[in-house]
């Protein structure tokens, strides 16, 4: 119950936050109650911003219903994409083309169906804007569906 006051206006927002939302307090510890109205900047920090398409940025509260569904679906699909920890043995990919940093031992990577690999945080940020592989422009969902069909 302690979570209620964070997402006052609808369940859509908590749905959109997905599993990235911090788990605060499990509802057991009483959350610190602000004295008086909170400073306005806190309000702004809480609202996550989404990108229904690459050049559009909007806070969650201003998304259309269609966009909310699209984003919720994307969050779900992204979680089905395989991840791995870079063990330094891959001969193919050495650098994440998104941040241009070399993969280092222990980095969490995400693998797309086309076999291109990126840092998980880098590619997840992009996939929330466009569900395509940055390197080959292959639509990720089409490839995902055909993987399901053949297996």
């Amino acid at each position, binding site marked *: 119950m302690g979570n209620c006051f964070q997402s006052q206006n609808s369940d859509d927002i908590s749905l959109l936050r997905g599993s990235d939302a911090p788990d605060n307090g499990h509802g057991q510890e009483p959350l610190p109650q602000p004295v008086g109205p909170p400073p306005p900047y806190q309000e702004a920090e809480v609202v996550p911003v989404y990108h229904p398409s690459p*050049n559009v940025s909007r806070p969650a509260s201003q998304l259309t219903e269609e966009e909310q569904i699209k984003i919720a679906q994307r969050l779900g699909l992204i979680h089905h994409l395989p991840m791995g920890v870079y063990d330094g043995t891959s001969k193919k990919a050495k650098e994440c083309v998104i941040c241009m940093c070399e993969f280092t031992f222990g980095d969490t990577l995400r693998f797309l169906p086309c076999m291109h690999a990126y840092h998980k945080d*880098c590619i997840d940020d992009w996939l929330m804007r466009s569900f395509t592989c940055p390197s080959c422009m292959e639509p990720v969902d089409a490839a995902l569906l055909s993987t399901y069909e053949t297996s």
Partner: protein
Amino acid sequence: MAGLPRRIIKETQRLQADPVPGISAIPDEANARHFKVEVAGPVKSPYEGGTFHLELFLPEEYPMSAPKVRFMTRIYHPNIDKLGRICLDILKDKWSPALQIRTVLLSIQALLSAPNPDDPLDTNVAEAWKKDEESAIEEARQFTRQHAMGNKPQQ
């Protein structure tokens, strides 16, 4: 500059260490996200012999969103308007974070070699281009002589 992403630092270094032939991109001293660009008009195009100044800006979201690029030198081209705005798919819906400043500038150079009047930004130029390509190319040459030769970078 504090808070500049590693990627931007790397791209800037690589552009300077291994420049693209016919293109120079120098970051602004005051703002490392802002580049002054010079593109030489490609050989065998009506822009040959001209030097075109552009400005390129990397928005806060870069590389998740495309660089903003604009011609500062006037140019007669169906995909570039009077304000210097460029109609190029990779700067809009076909942007990908695997693209870089280098690839964007190469694409712009290629656009000068291959104007596409079927996807116009300046409809007057595009119409002229489709109606009488030879005269349009002569007009582009004239513009190049007038605006892109002996010109200094604009502010």
